[in-house]
């Protein structure tokens, strides 16, 4: 786990630049190839990575900035993602002894589980806004392919971010800096 501030800032800026490139692809390029109804939420992948592997007191700010950066590409705004991200990171901090990323399969499973938690939190917030389940059911059918794509991408993506954040590839959680 990483907890030094200076290293975190530079790594975080690089992570945001990667998110920038991925968001450009997701918003401008993928729809041209017919992927307009399904969008790959790369911001969730980055927030999950931060939650899983970064042990910083400023994690809440990192999530906030990631979501704020994402809001330039989406009218969704930063609020819902920040709430979901922080709650998930709190949950991860309680479960860290049970989680490890020693194999790709385990990384995929853990990412998928926490995406379900993300979906539940966001759906709860949508329910408060729209006061109905119709929209959430429709969202659920989009969530299935999107979350599977994210989970499959996670081992590759996490290994890339591991190098940027300079953390070991397997079983980061529980390690002290």
């Amino acid at each position, binding site marked *: 786990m990483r*907890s030094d501030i200076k290293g975190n800032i530079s790594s975080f800026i690089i992570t945001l630049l990667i998110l*920038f490139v991925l*968001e*450009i*692809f*997701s*918003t*401008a*390029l993928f*729809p*041209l190839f*017919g992927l*307009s*109804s*399904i*969008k790959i*939420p790369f*911001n969730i992948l980055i927030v999950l990575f931060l939650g899983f592997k970064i042990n*910083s*007191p*400023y*994690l*809440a*700010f990192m*999530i*906030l900035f990631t979501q704020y950066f*994402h*809001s*330039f*590409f*989406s*009218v*969704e*705004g*930063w*609020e*819902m993602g*920040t*709430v979901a991200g*922080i*709650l998930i*990171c*709190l949950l991860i901090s309680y479960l860290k002894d049970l989680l490890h990323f020693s194999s790709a399969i385990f990384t995929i499973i853990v990412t998928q589980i926490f995406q379900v938690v993300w979906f539940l939190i966001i759906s709860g*917030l*949508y329910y408060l*806004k*729209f006061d109905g389940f*119709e*929209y959430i059911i*429709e*969202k659920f059918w*989009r969530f299935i392919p*999107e979350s599977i794509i994210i989970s499959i991408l996670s081992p590759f993506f996490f290994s890339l971010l591991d190098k940027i954040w300079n953390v070991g590839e397997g079983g980061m959680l529980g390690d002290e800096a």
Partner: protein
Amino acid sequence: MSILVNDNQKRTRLVLNIAVLLLALIRFASKDMTLQKTSFFENVVIDIVAPIQKSVTTVHSKVTGFFQNYVANVDASRKNIVYQKQIADLKGQLFELDEVLRENQRLKNFLQFGKSIPYKQVLAQVVAWDSNSDNKVIRINKGLDQGLRLQAPVITAEGLVGYVFRLTNDFADIITVLDPNNRVDGIIQRVRTHGIVEGYSKERSIMKYVSRTEPIILNDVVITSGLGNIYPKGIKVGTVSRIERESYGITQHVEIFPAVDFSRLEEVAVLVGTKSIEKEKQWNALENMDEEGSKR
């Protein structure tokens, strides 16, 4: 010592988590889902980001255009003959429609209809889509500098697209009729029944609050009613694609298939009311009067 540092870090982490969580929840609760005003910083960042999105879209369209126009264009001459015939037919139809338009104008004048507000059309190109699949939002390459205003209606030749939700100097985000945050006051053209058209799924909208006794049938055309002060009256929204009438309840479930094919949307027209500046001044004057009244 290290235990003290750890405790300190834990405390800082807890305080920051609670503070950011509260901030996000307060912002979420107070957020206006119908339009979004951008700050100076957001304005600058979006104006930097959007040209990159635009260039990606342009490069793609140039490449595909090359293949479609030159490489794959083998039977162009044969298609040309068919199109010439279609153009001739359409010219005939256009002439007939022109006559209908003149007749309509004459009848309108005869009935002394109120003078409708003239709109200026600003043509724009779609440069990107929203990065979240929950939001059916598109980004166009025209903004404040080209005369666009928040909540200006957006259309194509086929029908209604949506309205301007977020605006920067050179770009605008359009919330489409497929988005659940977009609500359009619509009328079923044939039976003149009112309802609220709301985004429902990736390719459907639903029309809410339609009484169960209304004799709506499949393929009925839905148009804007002009109520709500956003969309002008008479723009085609879509056609009725599904109706569910239960034996109980007071309304029926009506699904609308949009007139616009959003999967192939490339260009749109933004309707900018030429009197919007005067309107804005009037609103500002009213707001100032309210503020002065409350101070007294």
